[in-house]
């Protein structure tokens, strides 16, 4: 018997309609745990670097993690992996919701889709019965609408459905995969799913997920439960409200948006509006939110309330979360929050990423105002800000006219449009739209995270370390006093030494060596979360979280029966993370690509930045070009990757 995992994957050949239930190798669990870890290994083994995102050979993997379906709170993420049409690299957007536990209960750890279906289909997984069903009648339907239509047609109200909307069908590069109150959004998973002509995957499972030492597991969970109660009752003082709690930022609970609206940029990551949160705007936004949110909701087995069921002025209901509450308003320079609720409803049915998409639309508006895009491109477009955004969203989702160009994302669209449009592409890294932030002084920790992580999305890399230094020593001492999550006591001193201004402040402190340690810790925990499919909101994304490097090994050991200690777990996370890097290196990514946008910080320090990169690479066991060395790869049992990289001339023999 297998524990925590089911030990089976579903392999679906869409071209032939062949479905196989394949037993997995327990050795892979020992080496990579599960979730993102084992998915990366499958992509490495089976998808050569020559494969393009829309080639039949590009695998689209829906993966559960090691702890989905167990009593571990917040183990509800599904990680979707594929070569991204936007970045050309291995993307891994994740979604919460209810899907992955259901897949485990149906008896599978992953669904691996290969090749393309000749006709529109959806996959229906009901325990041992798995079938591809005709989806021609669902073509053009909304991503949320489709979920309910499928449940109805199957007469299975408890089926969990992940679906694409029109944007995915049309291979829009920011197309998301929507499911319940969640979505796997970044980097175009919906486009790859649409390219394979898979409209949805519906799952219903009524089997057991076994634990090796269940009673012991429950004992460890008691500590986690008590801590969640404690943290919910005791927010962290001296930090911004949304950073004070646990869970993903509680955007549906909190109405105070002074921080987002005044510190993040409006338009095409262009303008900071320092006076925005006036009494009038605050009142309007608060009442709009309170009258729109109908209920606060969570994902599977999670006590938090990160999402909400919403309906703006009796309009169609949908579910929303997080920063999507603001992104369309801010990108369109619209001061009425109601606009965001309205357009996000349409965007959710289209199935598009609510981080990237508004930036694409704002980018188009800027190009129009600059005369690079013309009245001909905007023919039929209303002239008001709100109408313009709705019109552009429709064009992008349908790939009509200028929308067809914009649907490839800001980076590609800028190059296709030309005539100086490239200058307006000022907020992408590795061809991917970033959060609309433009700041003052270079932050060494954020510089490293932005530059080097395979996620290419800062919100899913950061978290464990405060975003800025505490002004007073009293605050710092209070913060470090109770901090059992730290991997090492030395981090306390780093925080105590960290000043707002002066020599011990950014950009020179944390020093490159310390910054490397902090970033490594943060990304390690994200990698463990992503292998277990525990929500980062209860772990790596928040300050002083319930899950950490000291209780994870105990939970994983009790769940699986493999006895893993902290060192062992760190090594597994490091192994999977390094293999992911090697995979992207094999696709051409290297040091030259690891650059935050030039205007991300006003005050840049080119020498320091080079030093930061070199220090971090060395710390990680990568050579000066950002490629893992043979020595490090062998230490992590990845000798085969070293051989491959050498054979391709990416890793030069003996070169470091």
């Amino acid at each position, binding site marked *: 018997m297998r524990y925590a995992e089911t030990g089976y994957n579903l392999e679906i050949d869409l071209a032939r309609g062949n479905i196989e239930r394949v037993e997995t190798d327990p050795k892979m669990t020992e080496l990579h745990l599960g979730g993102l870890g084992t998915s990366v290994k499958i992509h490495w083994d089976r998808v050569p670097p020559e494969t393009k995102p829309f080639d039949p050979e590009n695998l689209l993997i829906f993966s559960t993690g090691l702890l989905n379906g167990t009593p571990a709170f917040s183990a509800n993420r599904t990680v979707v992996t594929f070569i991204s049409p936007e970045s050309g690299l291995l993307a891994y957007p994740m979604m919460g919701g209810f899907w992955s536990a259901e897949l485990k*209960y149906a008896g599978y750890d992953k669904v691996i889709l290969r090749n393309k279906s000749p006709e529109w289909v959806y996959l229906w997984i009901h325990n041992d019965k798995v079938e591809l069903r005709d989806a021609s009648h669902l073509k053009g339907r909304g991503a949320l609408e489709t979920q309910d239509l499928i449940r109805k047609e199957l007469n299975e109200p408890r089926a969990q459905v992940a679906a694409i909307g029109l944007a995915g069908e049309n291979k829009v590069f920011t197309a998301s995969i929507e499911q319940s109150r969640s979505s796997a959004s970044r980097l175009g998973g919906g486009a790859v799913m649409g390219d394979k002509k898979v409209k949805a995957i519906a799952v219903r499972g009524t089997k*057991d997920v076994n634990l090796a030492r*269940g009673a012991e597991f429950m004992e460890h969970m008691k500590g986690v439960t008590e801590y969640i109660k404690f943290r919910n009752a005791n927010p962290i003082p001296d930090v911004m409200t949304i950073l004070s709690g646990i869970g993903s930022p509680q955007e549906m609970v909190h109405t105070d948006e002074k921080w987002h609206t005044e510190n993040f940029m409006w338009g095409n990551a262009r303008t900071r509006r320092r006076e925005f949160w006036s009494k009038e705007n605050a009142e309007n936004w608060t009442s709009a939110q309170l009258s729109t949110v109908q209920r606060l909701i969570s994902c599977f087995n999670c006590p938090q309330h990160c999402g909400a069921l919403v309906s703006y002025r009796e309009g169609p209901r*949908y579910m929303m979360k997080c920063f999507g509450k603001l992104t369309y308003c801010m990108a369109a320079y619209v001061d009425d929050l109601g606009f965001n609720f309205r357009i996000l409803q349409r965007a959710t049915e289209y199935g598009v990423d609510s981080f990237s998409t508004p930036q694409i639309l704002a980018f188009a508006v800027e190009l129009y105002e600059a005369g690079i895009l013309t009245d001909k491109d905007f023919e039929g477009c209303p002239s008001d800000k709100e109408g313009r955004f709705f019109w552009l969203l429709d064009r992008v989702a349908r790939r009509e006219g200028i929308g067809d160009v914009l649907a490839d994302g800001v980076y590609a669209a800028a190059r296709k449009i030309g005539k100086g449009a490239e200058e307006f592409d000022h907020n992408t890294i590795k061809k991917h739209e970033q959060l609309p932030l433009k700041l003052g002084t270079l932050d060494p920790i954020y510089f490293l995270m932005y530059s080097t992580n395979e996620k290419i999305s800062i919100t899913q890399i950061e978290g464990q370390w405060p975003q800025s230094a505490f002004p007073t020593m009293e605050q710092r001492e209070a913060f470090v006093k109770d901090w059992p999550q730290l991997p090492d006591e030395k981090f306390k001193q780093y925080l105590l030494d960290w000043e707002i201004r002066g020599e011990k402040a950014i950009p020179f402190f944390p020093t490159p060596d310390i910054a490397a340690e902090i970033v490594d810790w943060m990304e390690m925990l994200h990698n463990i979360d992503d292998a277990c499919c525990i929500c980062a909101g209860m772990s790596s994304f928040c300050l002083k979280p319930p899950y950490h490097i000291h209780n994870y090994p105990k939970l994983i050991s009790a769940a699986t029966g493999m006895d893993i200690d902290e060192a062992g777990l760190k090594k597994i996370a490091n192994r999977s993370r390094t293999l992911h890097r090697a995979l992207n290196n094999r696709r051409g990514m290297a040091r030259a690509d690891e650059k935050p946008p030039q205007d991300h910080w006003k005050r840049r320090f080119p020498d320091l930045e080079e030093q930061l990169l070199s220090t971090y690479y060395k710390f990680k066991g990568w050579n000066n070009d950002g490629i893992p060395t043979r020595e490090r790869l062998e230490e992590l049992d990845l000798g085969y990757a070293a051989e491959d990289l050498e054979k391709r001339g990416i890793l030069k023999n003996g070169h470091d």
Partner: protein
Amino acid sequence: MAMIKKKIKTIKIDADKCNGCRGCEIVCSAFHANPKYSSNNPARSRIQVITNRLQNKWLPVFAGEYTAAECMGRDKYVIDGKEYDECDFCRASCPSRDIFKEPDSGLPLKCDMCEDDPPQEKPMCVQVCLNDVLMYEEREEEVEEGLEMEAVEAGVGSLIDKYGLKTIADTVARLAQKG
């Protein structure tokens, strides 16, 4: 009929607070697994969160008595503008639907308030519900003796319904001979 004092265990359900996470279902199935906590499967849970997210329906319902036949007359409730299906509030393990039955055997499930030795302070679902949707209460009440259908009887009854009295009687006789 004689009156006896009995401890009544109640779970008060504040459905308005439910965030729909279904943690109660998982822990119920884990507690009732054999060995305890060895497996997890909400389909085996004796509490089900009846959910329709877009219709804003989240309704935790506990498994009650087994019934051999479904109701002839049905009720639909509309509360706060939400229409509930005919069986949403019903606790029965019933032929009309597939909840509150063991997924493998189809045998009925019933909430036993996590009776345990030593006793649990509260049922497990109450323990893991951090949003105070499920609140445990106890009180004493005088009830008529012997009216309640015991769990064993309910189980045997459902087996008889499924396989016929003769098959079950023969099986019991055979098992009795084996000792």
